[in-house]
């Protein structure tokens, strides 16, 4: 892969027909905008690029829907080479035949230029569909894209589908999955989290990006969307309360954030700030041991996890420099 682009990092390219909801997704996920406010967004006229410097150096590029990318003045080849994932947004409440044709053309081109690209499809705006209709729509779209790609002789291309809506947490869930595919360190992270979970009576833990509430990694037990929502909201609660009262003590800015909440059904939600805008959120079930000693063990284990994370990060920073010299 060419390294001469400005960022050969995890870049996500967001595409789709006009009025599919691309800008709304960006605003809601990365700028904490209220979903209802996105009604007033203007039509996007220029490609936009945003950077998020966390452990993963995520960049999201959004392309206006109404343009034809195959005009010669667009350097589309370089563009597709530089991104790690292509996310195509399909409006499920609208007629989607055009979108599928458009998608097939884009995939054909993108795959030719960059065979390593991850191709993801968001079947978007499903909040307005009934449960049965959701499944039908998904099956229909999956089948038709399969046929379209087969016609173009691209039956080997892996395409992942997600049902999303900005009015619940499904969009975060989908983005989390997409981002995770772009992180080369993911297996290590998952292993480390598994270790942590095994030894600390943790039921489930997530590694969150504080700004966007996307989870970078989680342990290998299945993700329950309810747990994810609770943990994501706990990050919000912690940050908001912390911001209200931080003003006076300027000397403790270096302290890491930590918050613990006990619920009435003996579950403990635990948050610790990690490095570079990441936070670890865990659901702990102390069962019959007392909460106090359980938390002490968790604290100790999390300290070890954190130092492990620092080491992984140190290596991640060296690798790109190496590949440049190669």
């Amino acid at each position, binding site marked *: 892969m060419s390294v001469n682009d400005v960022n050969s990092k995890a870049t996500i390219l967001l595409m789709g027909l006009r009025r599919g909801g691309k800008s709304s997704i960006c605003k809601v996920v990365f700028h904490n905008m209220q979903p209802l406010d996105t009604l007033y967004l203007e039509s996007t006229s220029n490609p936009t690029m945003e950077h998020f410097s966390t452990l993963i150096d995520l960049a999201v590029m959004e392309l206006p829907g109404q343009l034809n990318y195959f005009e010669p003045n667009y350097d589309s080849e370089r563009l597709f080479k530089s991104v790690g994932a292509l996310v195509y947004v399909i409006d499920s409440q609208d007629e989607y035949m055009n979108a599928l044709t458009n998608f097939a053309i884009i995939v054909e081109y993108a795959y030719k230029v960059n065979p390593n690209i991850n191709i993801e499809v968001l079947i978007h705006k499903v909040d307005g569909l009934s449960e049965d209709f959701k499944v039908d729509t998904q099956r229909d779209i999956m089948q038709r894209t399969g046929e379209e790609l087969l016609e173009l002789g691209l039956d080997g291309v892996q395409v992942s589908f997600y049902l999303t809506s900005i009015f619940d947490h499904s969009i975060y869930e989908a983005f989390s999955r997409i981002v995770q595919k772009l992180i080369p360190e993911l297996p290590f992270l998952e292993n480390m989290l598994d270790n942590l979970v095994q030894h600390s009576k943790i039921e489930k833990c997530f590694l969150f990006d504080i700004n966007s509430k996307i989870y970078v990694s989680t342990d290998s037990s299945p993700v329950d969307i309810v747990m994810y929502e609770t943990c994501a909201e706990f990050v919000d609660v912690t940050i908001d309360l912390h911001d209200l009262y931080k003003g006076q003590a300027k000397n*403790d800015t270096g302290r890491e954030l930590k918050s613990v909440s006990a619920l009435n059904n003996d579950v403990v939600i635990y948050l610790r700030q990690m490095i570079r805008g990441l936070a670890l959120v865990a659901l702990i079930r102390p069962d019959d041991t007392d909460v106090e000693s359980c938390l002490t063990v968790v604290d100790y284990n999390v300290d070890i996890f954190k130092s492990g994370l620092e080491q992984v990060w140190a290596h991640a920073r060296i690798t790109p420099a190496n590949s440049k010299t190669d």
Partner: protein
Amino acid sequence: MSSNNRKKLLLMGRSGSGKSSMRSIIFSNYSAFDTRRLGATIDVEHSHLRFLGNMTLNLWDCGGQDVFMENYFTQQKDHIFQMVQVLIHVFDVESQEVIKDIEIFTRALKQLKRYSPDAKIFVLLHKMDLVQLDKRNELFQIMMSKLQETSAAYGFPSLVGFPTSIWDESLYKAWSQIICSLIPNMATYQANLKKLKSVMDAREIILFERTTFLVICSSNTASGELLDPKRFEKISNIMKNFKQSSMKLKSSFKTLVLDNTIYVSEFSANMMCFIVLNKPDDPQDLVLENIKKVRVYFQ
């Protein structure tokens, strides 16, 4: 507290002034946006709310169209105006017919004078967000002096008014004070809280009602610290959200400790306390033990 604690609150005002929106935000966890979906209230909508355990608020949300209004003052007057503890009258600041608004207010006062002369009267000048910032205070003063005059003429000299808007914290402030006026042993709470604050060397202690997260009282009213003046409402909002998310785990939350400086804990079956400490070095057990010990004084 005595068990005879059924409080009847009348929520009145002309149609479109925002009565049901207020009720939905404070008592039903609506966001300000959600209130757009509310339709007109037909006749009277009753809601019963348990508050601080043994206090029940009967909130009578009276639809404000002229037809209903006429009805309240003629056929239903003894039904509506009997045994009223609190009248909350809402005025739309944007209203074109101020004279008529005030006339209806006086008619309500007249009935109250007859059926429940001990009622407390609150007026809310609502939708203040539609008035320019520099004119708000002036407008509020003019309106209040006029209303004061009217209510004094009908035998309710101590009228309390608030400028409110659903888009900022003023709504919570007004409702907190309205609800607090119904709590009998407020002075004891306040004194105990002051004491607790000095014992724990806390920066601030706030008491919240548990279901609505309305502020019952707070410790430092007069110390000149530069804290966010909207923090009560913000905390109310944040904690309400957290309560809802903990409901997803089929539970409710008991305690929250943030950075060893902010402690949120249940205080009794119907109160939450929110404690901000001065320094983060106090051992956690000690603080929690203190909270446990002090609960007795707030029952």
